[in-house]
């Protein structure tokens, strides 16, 4: 007797008698019915993205698609044993300090171009502008995303902007980052009033001695007066044929006002608030996570570029060196972590040298000793007006507050 090619259902042979047709049809029909009973009915799939799961043996059920960026995980608490959940993996976000928790410089207000605010975040402005970036604190429970309790956000208040651009940027180490990839830049934002626009620009800087930089401009979006997450899809160009110099970087700008760069945002005034900045490869914004996923990891990541020593009182900094003349001392510093490169600049305030016997001496100049410094060892040369004893050990001591010593290897 003949059989069907896939399921082996019994079928009448071509030479069988017509009088046996009814029985053959019933036999075939029963075989089909038996097979179909083992299959998932089409009605299980109720919408785009639906998949068939099971609530028990031989019991198919619809599982509706999750939200953008979510992943499917085993979850025994659900009827199907599966659920879509947000992707919290660390390392996907190339932006460091995207939740604005790290503020080593203690920034309280910045009104000038090319100045650091929260760690890794620097201002960007040109034209006739008046603005102030300030840190703001979330009231507990009011941060914009469930499951991640933000503490601090960034505010930009623009009072004047003519033929201008005003923004905030982060330089991501190495221009190879995101090259030739589709990326999504996302953040939560709100305006104090109206529906002003913002835009994202990705600038590929090939470093000193490298090819000229390349801007890729996103499509501007209007923001509302309530915390809302916005995402910008950007195709970052290939770096094929480019020359990469030293200290290259991929720079991500967020523009609040722009009549210069070409985003179409235009000159704008008003108050903008930002939190939860993320830049990741892919086509959808996944759940926000900091670059490292931990507080200590995020601090260390920031300290690769800048680390500040400070003292809450006027005590010593646990950094000591030796005087080599009556006015100068060399002090090798103990770093918190290795830095991106040799330190390129230091900032300081209200420091003294102290030998634990005589009166402390105010440091008038503090410079990098470039010959004995690299990414893991930094030696500074301190100058005082007079009074050091050659070959005597001195420690750095705080003076009146604010007292600090900062080391920068920022891009």
């Amino acid at each position, binding site marked *: 007797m003949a059989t069907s090619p896939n399921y082996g259902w019994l079928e009448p042979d071509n030479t069988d008698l017509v009088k046996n047709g009814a029985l053959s049809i019933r036999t075939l029909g029963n075989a089909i019915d038996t097979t179909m009973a083992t299959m998932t009915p089409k009605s299980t799939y109720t919408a785009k993205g639906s998949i068939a799961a099971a609530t028990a043996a031989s019991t198919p059920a619809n599982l509706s698609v999750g939200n953008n960026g979510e992943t499917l995980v085993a979850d025994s608490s659900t009827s199907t044993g599966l659920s879509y959940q947000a992707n919290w993996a660390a390392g996907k976000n190339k932006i460091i300090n995207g939740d604005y928790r790290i503020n080593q410089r203690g920034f309280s207000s910045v009104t000038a171009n090319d100045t650091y605010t929260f760690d890794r975040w620097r201002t960007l402005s040109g034209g006739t502008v008046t603005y102030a970036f300030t840190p703001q604190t979330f009231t507990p429970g009011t941060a914009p995303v469930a499951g991640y309790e933000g503490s601090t956000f960034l505010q930009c208040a623009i009072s004047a902007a003519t033929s201008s651009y005003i923004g905030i940027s982060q330089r991501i180490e190495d221009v190879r980052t995101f090259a030739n990839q589709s990326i999504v830049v996302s953040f939560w934002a709100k305006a104090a009033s109206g529906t002003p626009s913002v835009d994202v620009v990705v600038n590929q800087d090939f470093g000193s001695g490298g090819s000229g930089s390349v801007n890729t401009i996103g499509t501007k979006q209007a923001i509302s007066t309530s915390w809302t997450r916005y995402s910008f899809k950007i195709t970052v160009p290939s770096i094929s044929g480019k020359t990469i110099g030293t200290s290259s970087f991929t720079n991500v700008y967020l523009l609040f006002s722009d009549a210069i760069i070409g985003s179409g945002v235009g000159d704008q005034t008003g108050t903008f608030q930002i939190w939860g900045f993320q830049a990741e490869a892919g086509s959808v914004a996944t759940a926000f996570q900091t670059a490292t996923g931990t507080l200590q990891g995020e601090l260390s990541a920031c300290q690769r570029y800048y680390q500040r020593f400070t003292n809450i009182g006027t005590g010593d900094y646990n950094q000591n060196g030796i005087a080599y003349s009556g006015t100068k001392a060399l002090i090798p510093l103990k770093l918190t972590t290795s830095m991106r490169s040799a330190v390129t600049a230091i900032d300081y305030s209200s420091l003294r040298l102290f030998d634990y016997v005589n009166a402390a001496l105010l440091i008038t100049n503090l410079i990098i000793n*470039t010959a004995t410094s690299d990414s893991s060892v930094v030696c500074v040369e301190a100058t005082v007006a007079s009074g050091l004893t050659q070959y005597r050990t001195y420690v750095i001591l705080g003076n009146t507050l604010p007292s600090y010593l900062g080391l920068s290897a920022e891009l």
Partner: protein
Amino acid sequence: MENVTFIESENLLTNEITEHAIIDRGNGEFTSMPKSEYDRRQAEQSTPIVINEAKTK
């Protein structure tokens, strides 16, 4: 008001002279860096952002 002064420092090992910029922020805070780094930053400030014609959205 910022005030920039330049000083020279001699490397005790090589006797090489390096010039440094010291920026007085006017509030008791200072920033110092080798003059080569200061010059690089000044050049970057004069051309702070590139406006390129190629635009991808």
